[in-house]
């Protein structure tokens, strides 16, 4: 089962990968640096992706628009998606859930490794 990490910051993607690996998960990881790359990655790998971790503010296509698109395509709508973003206001959290009603979680930056593990651990262990 693959994990798709979507963030325009390469450093942030590396930090998340380190946390995943230190937690003992060896899943193959796909990376995308904006929503458009994420669409490509999802479109060609959707049968194998079991978790998406997605930032909000990115060039070309935002994370929330990517997740909205995912929520409307039946073949991928049930893939667990977790927002991982510096956008932590109540307004933004509500907006994200409205755009993707099946959103599996919302992690606000800065987060500790434990905070991210608590969110994604149950999803990865279930798979």
């Amino acid at each position: 089962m693959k994990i798709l990490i979507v963030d325009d910051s390469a450093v942030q993607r590396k930090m998340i990968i380190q946390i995943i690996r230190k937690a003992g998960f060896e899943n193959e990881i796909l990376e995308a640096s904006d929503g458009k790359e994420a669409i490509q990655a999802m479109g060609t790998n959707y049968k194998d992706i079991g978790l998406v971790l997605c930032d909000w503010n990115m060039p070309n296509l935002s994370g929330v628009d990517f997740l909205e698109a995912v929520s409307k395509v039946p073949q991928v709508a049930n893939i667990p998606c977790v927002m991982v973003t510096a956008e932590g206001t109540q307004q933004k959290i509500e907006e994200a859930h409205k755009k993707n009603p099946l959103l599996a979680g919302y992690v606000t930056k800065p987060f500790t490794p434990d905070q991210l593990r608590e969110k994604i651990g149950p999803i990865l262990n279930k798979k």
Partner: protein
Amino acid sequence: MDLRQHLIQAVTDSALEMFTSLFSVVPVIEEKKDGAIKLENKNIMSSIGMAGKIDGSIILILDQVSACRIVSKMLSIDIKEVNSDVLDGVGEVVNILTGGMKRKLENFDYTFDISLPVVVHGGKDPATVIRSAYADCIEFNIECSDFKIFLILSFKVDSSTHSKDHAVPENKSQEANDMLGRLIGEQGK
């Protein structure tokens, strides 16, 4: 509390939260009043724009050594020279810091949207950083044992009524939806 005090508190709280979460360090954060920024070597500047009930920008300025040390801590590796990860990491620092500030100011109804970070590397003298004549400015020193950051918050309050509808035009997510559907359809052939 007036806006200026809210902003000082929001920056301070956000910086404390970020440095303790990411680096397990507690920085010393002080409002800087002397106006001069002196760095030993070439600087890196990273900024994010704000627009909404507060318009302005947050600018981080730090020297190359501090930047390398901060991103080394983020990635748990030892970076000696500025590379693409260091520039990216500094952008992420200002992104996280501004996001935290935004979250704290929401409680007082000071809402705004933020841009993507811009990072500029090079130039010896950051004293030419523009401090707008049309906006108020608060400056901070953020210091730990092995790095130092200058932060400039330039702002003005927009007293006009802003539409709260910041939704992306409908066709952007529809276009993404169409593209995803097409790719999945091709996989099925």
